[in-house]
């Protein structure tokens, strides 16, 4: 499976199994950078040497956090809980992508972090951008990885 298919498979599996949400790449809603107040970032080493950014709307961020952790709509969702949930979500997506690409291979990932902007394009790295709809909300992932991974 190539990198894009692996990332798509991973996001669909994580959303389906743990957040009970649906991702559709076929008709991405139009989105502006301001639509994504929550951006996570994680660096990886292993079958992919690179960096993943996940961009979500506020509505999606809250939905992901509530569904992952099991917080009811009438319960308060604290900002630090929301951010922790998005970090864990990113960790799950990237980790699963790595194991789809190389099931037995060791890999290393930093702790995901919240950032204000996606990482700038790095020379010598492939940029893979996936746009889609997450339960009708715009959703974007940007994966930059070292060139030799393009044939993975």
């Amino acid at each position, binding site marked *: 499976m190539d990198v894009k298919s692996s990332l798509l498979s991973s996001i669909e599996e994580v959303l389906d199994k743990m957040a009970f949400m649906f991702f559709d790449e076929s008709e991405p809603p139009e989105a502006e950078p301001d639509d994504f107040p929550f951006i996570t970032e994680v660096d990886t080493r292993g079958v992919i040497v690179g960096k993943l950014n996940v961009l979500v709307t506020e509505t999606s961020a809250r939905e992901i956090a509530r569904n992952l952790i*099991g917080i009811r709509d009438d319960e308060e969702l604290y900002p630090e809980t929301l951010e922790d949930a998005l970090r864990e979500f990113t960790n799950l997506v990237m*980790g*699963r992508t790595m*194991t789809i690409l190389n*099931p037995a*291979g060791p890999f290393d990932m930093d702790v995901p972090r919240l950032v204000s902007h996606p990482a700038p394009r790095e020379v010598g790295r492939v940029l893979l951008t996936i746009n889609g709809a997450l339960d009708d909300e715009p959703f974007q992932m940007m994966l930059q990885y070292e060139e030799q991974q393009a044939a993975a």
Partner: protein
Amino acid sequence: MSKTIGLIDDSRVMRSILRKSILMNNVQVDEFLEADNGQEGYEMLSGHSNELDIAFVDLHMPRMSGVEMLRRLRTEGIQSVPIVIVSTSADLEMQKTCMDLGAVGFIRKPFTPQDIGTLITKIFGVGVPA
């Protein structure tokens, strides 16, 4: 009978997900004992081995990995707590190592609440423990 369940994972969110998944399976829980790193988890398992009915242990944690924890517990003869390893890894060799060291189950992230229910049922016998 209510269960005392150990959750050892450096991610607070993952411990919450495990808690939610266990409770969604109608397991009657007396208490969740939690640790956020391998060393504290090891001490918790050592000190509460007679109270814990099962423990879910992350494979990759700061201060002590899940494998190292299993190895130490085995060396010290503390094997009364059924331990389920939780990991993103799909490495069959790693799974075998964990099982050889005494783990009773291995669950790969991402998992569903049903996956947790199936595992608990398997470990405690027929039917979800009451």
